[in-house]
């Protein structure tokens, strides 16, 4: 069974064993507005927690997406390159950004659950 956790920078992580699927939250996509470009990390790249891992651009501006945990990129969602607007229509579903094999699951301790994230964005 998967658990979804959140960062204060508005990324979500769906945890399944040692693998985390990472995306940006619905709140984040609303703040960004219409997404027109997504740059994803290369498969195999080692990411450190809090390192810039991906870029999401709206008409107005570019924003970094940070690695919420340390680990190695297992897969990137190439569908986003072809259809960046998926981020607006299904941010917490089909518009996942990348999957990462976590190096240190203790890092998850500092993340928020859904209730805490809701309070964070209220």
């Amino acid at each position, binding site marked *: 069974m998967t658990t979804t956790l959140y960062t204060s920078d508005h990324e979500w992580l769906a945890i399944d064993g040692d693998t985390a699927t990472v995306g940006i939250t619905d709140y984040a996509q609303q703040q960004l*507005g*219409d997404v*027109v*470009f997504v*740059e994803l990390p290369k498969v195999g790249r080692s990411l450190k927690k809090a390192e810039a891992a991906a*870029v999401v*651009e*709206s*008409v*107005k*501006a*570019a924003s970094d997406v940070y690695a919420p945990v340390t680990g190695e990129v297992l897969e990137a969602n190439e569908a986003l*390159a072809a259809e*960046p607007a998926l981020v607006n229509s299904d941010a917490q579903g089909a518009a996942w950004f990348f999957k990462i094999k976590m190096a240190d699951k203790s890092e998850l301790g500092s993340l928020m659950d859904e209730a805490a994230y809701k309070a964070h964005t209220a």
Partner: protein
Amino acid sequence: MPVPDDQKSLRQTPLHALHVSLGGKMVPFAGYDMPVQYPAGVLKEHLHTRAAAGLFDVSHMGQLALRPKSGKVEDAARALERLVPQDIVAIAPGRQRYAQFTNADGGILDDLMVANFGDRLFLVVNAACKEADEAHLRAHLADDCVIDSLADRALIALQGPKAEAALAKLCAEAPSMTFMDAGPHEVAGVKCFVSRSGYTGEDGFEISVPAADAERLTRTLLENPDVLPIGLGARDSLRLEAGLCLYGHDIDTATTPVEAALEWSVQKSRRSGGLRAGGFPGAEKILAHFDSGASRRRVGLRAEGRAPVREGAPLFADAAGGEPIGKVTSGGFGPSLNAPVAMGYVPTNLSALGTKLFAEVRGQRLPLAVAAMPFVKNTYKR
């Protein structure tokens, strides 16, 4: 919720309450609290303006009247020619022209619109420059003109292919105006100044309206289902696709009109050999640029990929190594082109259409080509 200090000091246009009631996302811009977008979002607002009609609040911009002390508008025109490289005398009554205030170094202090209303000149200047512009006018033209700051007026832009039909319902003369016509007209019974111009590349109008009537007139225009309110976000993407300069970004005190590729805006009468050649600040340098060329030039840039190339990105001649040859001054995503668009300055020898260049974005060199502007064909009613 407590209001932060920096928001307390922001000024509001006469349409501020309307923006808030329409769900506008308000941001600080040039000292004003302005809508960057409405709930439709930048992309839809942009595309709607090109497909139907968009309504923009540009009341933050400065509006000024120059009234000739002699009573003859030509005298005001001659006086203004001391500050701009344009032929102002030749602007016929009821017509408008694009101009720039230049400085002694040939740089641009601001860009503006100048209309001849028959008895006076009407000027529209940028919000961020308006106090400085007014002081500049008072310092140089006070002997010849009474300078009225029209701070009690709002300015509304109505832009897009359905702008004419929307305005015609409230102003019978609107359809007979052509691009750059300008003058006093009644709109919905209110005494306004109307010009057929704008900042989107689309046909459209700018309407100067007394502040007290601004909200009522705007609400009346918005009752038309073809007309949607448009924020500053789409205003920027529309003008970028139209290849139009944004003051402080694409032009500033360090760029001459020739470097900025604005030669078309300087009439022959003010150039070397013309009837009233020179006689404006920085004439020596600007005329030398006309006569011998400038070493750099503002160009349009199209990217090969999908990644937007934004303001400040350094430009390179090669895919690796070398020093920057220029930089991007405006850039982003063009919704009508569904592709990134940018403009920037490059050495004149690299400014030919089709020249391959590279922009550095997040450490990568992205391929670009020099491209013709406007990026989207303009639809002015000539």
